[in-house]
Structures are given as C-alpha cells and as structure tokens.
C-alpha cells in the first residue's frame, strides 16, 4: 500500500513538473517558444494573459503565439495571470527584470498595470494591449481589440430589434468591479436608453462570471417570473450556458425567447445552431491575432502603429452560424 502511494505521488509530482515545463500553450508558468541558447538572437516578447482557464483568452494567446512562432525569430513567453491583478503585476516585473523586447498585456484591470506600462515606456519597450484597453494617459501603448461598450451596445441593439416593444426581457450583467463589467453595462444601458425601452427591462441582476452562478440565478428568477419573460441579455457566453440550462430545466422553451450573448465560443455557436440561443456577438479572434502580428512587425521595423486598432465583430445567429461553426 505504501509503495503504491509513494509511486502515485511520485507520478503526480512528475506530471506537475511536466505541466510546468512543457505546456505548449503557456498554461501556468512562462513558456518560451524558443530555446535558451537562442534567446539572445531572438526578439523576446512577453505575453501576459489575464487567465489561461478561459476559452476566449486562451484562443487569443494561442493565435498570437502561433503567428510569432511562424515568424521564426521571435521568442514568445506567456504568463498566466489567473484573474489576479497582483499576480499579473508581479509577472510583468519579473519579465522586465529578465529583459524583454516587447510586452503584450491582456490586463486583469486597467489601473494596476499603468505603472508597469510607464516603466516599459521609460525603458523603451513597446507595449501592446489586446482585447482590453487602457485609459488615455496611461502611457504609450497600442490597443488591439473591440470596444466593450460597442460590443454590448451591438448585442443589446440586436435584442431590441428582435423583440417587439412592450415585450419584457431579463438583463444579467457582471458583478461590478472590473473595467469590462463597467463598459459592457454602460453599452447595454445606452442602447436601451437610445431605443427608449427602459420599461421593457423585467429585472436587472448581477452574476459572478461563471456558468454555475448564472444558472443558479436564472433558476431563482424563473421561480419569481415563471415564463413571463420574452428575452434574456447577458454579457458573456459562459453565463448564457447557465441561463439556457435553467430555462430547459424549468421545461420552458429557449427557442421561443430572444437570448443574446457575447464572445462567439464554439459551444455558444452550437446553441445558436440548435435554436436555443438567438445570437452571440463573435469577436473575430483571427482578425485580432493578425492585427496584433502586424503591430508587432511595425514596431520591429522601427515604426509606430496606430494607437487604437479595432477588430471585426460579427453577430452570429441562425442566418450565418454555419459559416463560423467549423
């Protein structure tokens, strides 16, 4: 028994070491794409991901990493912030002390990384932020991504266009505390105000950014409102899975309602295909990665790319889901 336990623990430790050292996607610790001996010849890019355990963010990271590796002379190192602002700042500090040629940040929050952006500026290290931008005056950087305000505005506009005036909808938003939450909330509220449809909001509730939390919340809301709602708007795909599970569990028909979301993840598009989700706003990750690579090359050749580079967003619904669900 003891030998078995010792063997199991040894195996576990070996696996965890392997996980830290050979992960192709830069899961938890830094994962240089090039060898140590080559690092001095290569252009060193440090990529700071907000959280590796997030489909959308992992796809962005992998897309940029693949393009850097294809370039052949770039050493790409990825760090996992694990949704922790302090951890992300520490990782940036560590990378700067090791020496890098460029920094790409997907910030957990905008404020905590400002001082690090400014340190990079002073050291002459170019800074890119992807998916989440920084406030003007935070330093010199190039932002590549969408505007969260516009994303939520587009999503809400779609819902309002597909829901007759007077029909009621449930608005689910992120728990406040992050820039993304604030921007998407403002975008949705602005679209509702512009359409003069404030009275059509049945209720507004906040959820922690998990499927389980959104599902619990929606189950409780169904206890209160039953089937007396015609639409649901929520600010990411993760939450919409929970919403649809709850509607199905209550033996209501999700396809009879207008349900909208943001992200365009594969399972969400499968739900669009099956008719349970009306629309998800897909952020075009390929476009984001291409434009990031163009910005990298511009910096490397001595130029300066535009301050804000916006990517395409696509409303994926029944009319076009087959194009994107491959």
């Amino acid at each position, binding site marked *: 028994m003891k030998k078995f336990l010792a063997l199991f623990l040894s195996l576990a430790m070996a696996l965890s070491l392997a996980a830290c050292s050979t992960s192709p996607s830069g899961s938890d610790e830094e994962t240089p794409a090039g060898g140590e001996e080559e690092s001095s010849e290569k252009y060193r890019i440090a990529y700071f991901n907000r959280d590796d*355990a*997030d489909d959308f963010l992992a796809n962005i990271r992998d897309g940029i990493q693949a393009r850097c590796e294809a370039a052949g002379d770039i050493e790409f190192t990825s760090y996992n912030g694990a949704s922790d602002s302090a951890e992300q700042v520490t990782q940036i500090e560590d990378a700067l002390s090791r020496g890098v040629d460029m920094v790409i940040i997907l910030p957990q929050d905008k404020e905590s990384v400002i001082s690090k952006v400014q340190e990079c500026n002073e050291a002459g290290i170019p800074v890119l932020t992807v998916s989440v931008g920084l406030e003007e005056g935070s330093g010199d950087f190039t932002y590549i991504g969408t505007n969260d305000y516009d994303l939520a505005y587009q999503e809400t506009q779609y819902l309002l266009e597909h829901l007759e005036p007077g029909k009621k909808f449930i608005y689910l938003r992120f728990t406040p505390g992050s820039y993304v939450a604030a921007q998407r909330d403002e975008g949705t509220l602005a679209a509702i105000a512009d359409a003069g449809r404030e009275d059509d909001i049945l*209720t507004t509730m906040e959820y*922690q950014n998990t499927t389980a939390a959104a599902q619990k919340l929606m189950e409780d809301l169904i206890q209160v409102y039953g089937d007396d709602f015609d639409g649901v708007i929520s600010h990411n795909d993760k939450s919409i*899975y929970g919403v649809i599970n709850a509607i199905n569990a209550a033996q209501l028909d999700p396809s009879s309602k207008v349900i909208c979301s943001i992200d365009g993840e594969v399972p969400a598009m499968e739900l669009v295909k099956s008719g349970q989700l009306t629309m998800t706003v897909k952020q075009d990750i390929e476009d984001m990665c291409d434009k990031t690579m163009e910005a990298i090359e511009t910096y490397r050749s001595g130029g300066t790319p535009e301050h804000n580079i916006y990517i395409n967003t696509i409303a994926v619904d029944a009319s076009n889901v087959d194009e994107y669900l491959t």
Partner: protein
Amino acid sequence: MSEKKEVVKQKKSFAELYSKYGTFSILALVLIIGTIASPQFLTLDNMLNVIRQNSYLLIIAFGTTFVMVVGCINIAYDMMLALVGCASCLIYVALGGNLLITVLLSLMIGALLGVAYGFLVTHFNLPPFIVGLAISSFCQGMTLLITGGRSIPGTMGTSYTLIGQGFFFGIPVPIIIMFACMAVTWVILRKMIFGRHAIAVGGNRQAAIASGIRAKRVILIVYIMDGLLCGLAAIVFMSRLGVGQPNPGTGYGFDAITGVNIGGASLSGGSGGAVGSFIGVLIVGLLNNIMNLRGLSSAWQFIIKGILIVIAVIIDMKTKEAMVKGSAK
C-alpha cells in the same frame, strides 16, 4: 461563588439546547424570513429548486463532514471539482459516450486525489491546510494541462447531462444522488464502528490511539471517502452545467465548509453528522435563494453572507466554550 456557578449552568444549558436544536432553529428562522420576503419562496417548486441547485455542494459537504469529524480539513475542493469534472467530460467524449465507465473512472480520479491528500497528511504529518494548497495547485495545473484552458465541447445534450439535469419519476437525478450519499454518510457515522472511530479520533486523538484505534488509517480512509464524494459532486456539477469548464468558479468548498460548520460539525473535530450538514448547507442555499428572489444586488449579497458566517462561527465557538466550562465545573 454560587452566582458564578448559576451563570455557568445557564450558559451550559443554552449550549446544550443550541447543540440539540440550534441548526433546526436557524432553519426555521430562515424559512420564516423567506416566507415573509417572497411569496414564491415556500413552494414545492422552489424548495426542489434550492435542493437541486445545492445538490453538488451537499455531496461535497458529506465528504467535508467526514474530514471535519476527524479534526482535519480539505481546502482543495474547488480545484478538485474542476479537475475531476473536466476529466469526466474528456473521458466521456473519448469513450464515445460510455456513461458508466466515465463515472467509474472519474470516481477513481477523485479517490486517488483523496489518497494523495490523506497520505501526505498522515504519512508526513503535514498540516491539512498546507496539503490543501498543494493539492489545489496540482489540480489547477492538471486541469489547464488536460483542457488547454478551453471548455470541452461534445457533452451538451448527451446522456452525460442526465446526471445533473435529468429526472427520475419526476424527481431531479442530482437530488436522488445527494440523498443516497446522505444516507451512506449517516449509516457510516452513526451505525458503523468506523464512524465511531472517526468521531473518537476527532474528539481526542491521543485517547483514541491509546484505546487501540489506528488513527492514521482512519484519517486516510476518511480522505479517500472525501475524494470519492468530491469526484461524484464534480460529475453532478459538470453535468448540470452541460459543458466541462476548466474555470468553473470558486467558493464551493468554502460554502460546503460553512454549511457543515453551521450544521454542527466542529472545526476542531469530534462532532458532526449527515443531517446537520444537510441542514447547514441548505440554510446557506436558502439564504442565497431569498436574496435572489428579492432581487438584492451582489454587493448586498456578499455583505449579508459575510455577516451571517461570522455570527454562525461566533455562536459555534461560544457554545463549545460554554460546554467545556460547564463540564470542567
């Protein structure tokens, strides 16, 4: 002198009363508050809804009960849930939808994590808290490794979701699984020698060893059972979500431990039971339900939950203090 004795006696009688009826009284109070707060609260539909929502937490809580009874703790539940849950989805997809083998292999992974936890605690005498951090970190890394940080497609709308979303004769399947786990926990703790040994180890480990109980073996078995139950909870949880997610969220272990504590299990060991844990976790779930039914913002939900946890722990501590003082006099 006699006045002091009287005060101690009164404190002890309150403590005795609380230990017998405290959890039920809190449950009754929550039910009354809920009924006043919302007309939808005290309905069969909503009660089933709350139990179904919390079924995976309750399954974790029965494992927590065993661990707390022997005076230990497990703080790695959230990451164990993520690892076993994602592994179960991957296994299910890889096996082309063989649910039985998926469940068995997933339970095995849960049990192995329990073996690792228990072995580190008993063999190396490491503090359970530190082992929990290590196991948690290991599980987080493994989850990222096996999923690449992505949700696992292929389980939505399949037989996999029957465990978390299905019904059996009109009763939600997770509720049936949860009650089965509760019955097994009750039988082990109340009717089997092993349960008495576990309570003895948690109450006074030295005395238990002196009376011939192999304390380390008991603790190791308890952690294996805890891992098994956590594995089962993970399958119910991911099946409920319908999709394997590497980052399903945090706080589940915290809620389970809080519920078990409210339900009468002491953090220092020696007490606890299946029924108490069931009611304790249900109280936490009902409070969340009331706040959602009332449409309270997340800020107020956090504040109220925090205050209630502190009150519950203070009552628990003061009650035990009074019991100890009363016994000493």
